[in-house]
């Protein structure tokens, strides 16, 4: 994939993430201030498909955005070759995606 495409993907995923991060933070603040227990939170996240869908999108955006940034940092600050940097970035992206989706699955309540 060309650098220009990666740049576009990074910007677009940022565009998707920005409002989501705000909502995510808002929800955290609400949940902690309202003193909800873990069970209560899980009951709510599992009550509607909206939350799992929201967080799936969020995880996808993160899995696109973060590896591209990480790749830029590694390329600039380490002497790892292009292939090495790409491999680390792709690996990191894959792990983020797996762990993220696993977490979404857990709070969706679909497993139980």
């Amino acid at each position, binding site marked *: 994939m060309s*650098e220009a495409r990666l*740049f*576009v993907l990074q910007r677009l995923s940022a565009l998707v993430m920005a409002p989501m991060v705000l909502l995510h933070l808002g929800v955290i603040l609400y949940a902690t201030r309202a003193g909800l227990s873990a069970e209560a939170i899980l009951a709510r996240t599992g009550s509607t498909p909206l939350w799992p869908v929201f967080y799936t999108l969020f995880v996808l955006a993160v899995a696109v955005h973060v590896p591209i940034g990480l790749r*830029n940092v590694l390329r600039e600050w380490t002497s790892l070759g292009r292939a090495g940097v790409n491999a680390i970035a792709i690996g990191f992206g894959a792990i983020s995606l797996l762990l993220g989706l696993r977490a979404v699955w857990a709070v969706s309540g679909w497993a139980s």
Partner: protein
Amino acid sequence: MADSNETLTVRLWRGDATEGDYHTFTVPRRENQTVLDVVTEIQRRHAPDLAYRFACRVGVCGSCAMMVNDTPRWTCRTHVSKVAGDGTLTVGPLRNMPVIRDLVADMTEFFDKWQKAGGRFQGSRTRAEPMAEVDTTSKARRHADASIECINCGVCYAACDVVGWDKDYLGPAALTRAWTLLNDTRHADQRGTLDRAMDQGGCGSCHTQGNCMRACPVGISPTGAIAGIKRMSLLDFLGMRGR
């Protein structure tokens, strides 16, 4: 006048591509003296074999750029009174370029990167055709105007930290050149220039911190030009690139 005001202690870099270090000279302080005057005086009176570059002496050609107290500047446009408050001055060859000798830096790579950034103009008309008309009030023309006065002095290139640590980075001047071409309606190879400017080592590597912009003696903002190319590339991807 106090003693320290009457003379100037100058640390001047002497050496070649492989080795060298700073030599100290003492020169009299004069009214309206520029850093280039100081370098010239050292060459005339102390070190006749000192190598340095200059041409116009009045801030037109850009060939006298050197590091003055670790900041890249046009030496002919830099008054000693501005930079040597404490009576000392350190002068060296431009940063981020190999040294040829003394204060002369090798600008080959700097110019090569202009080509790499897609900086070559490509027209589409022949001599037989009428001259292209450029709308002087258009946004593109205004963007081009903002950077068209660049005279390839290399000051911004020496000021850029990213150039220092990433040898692939094309640097502010080359990308600014690409931006003027992308805003030149006569330039036929728009695609080629945009692709090259956004390729590895291109605009994506810029940190947008504006060292280049602060250093440019002409007042150009390569930072703005690079941001412009990034924006253009995004709009281009979305099929919304206007002219």
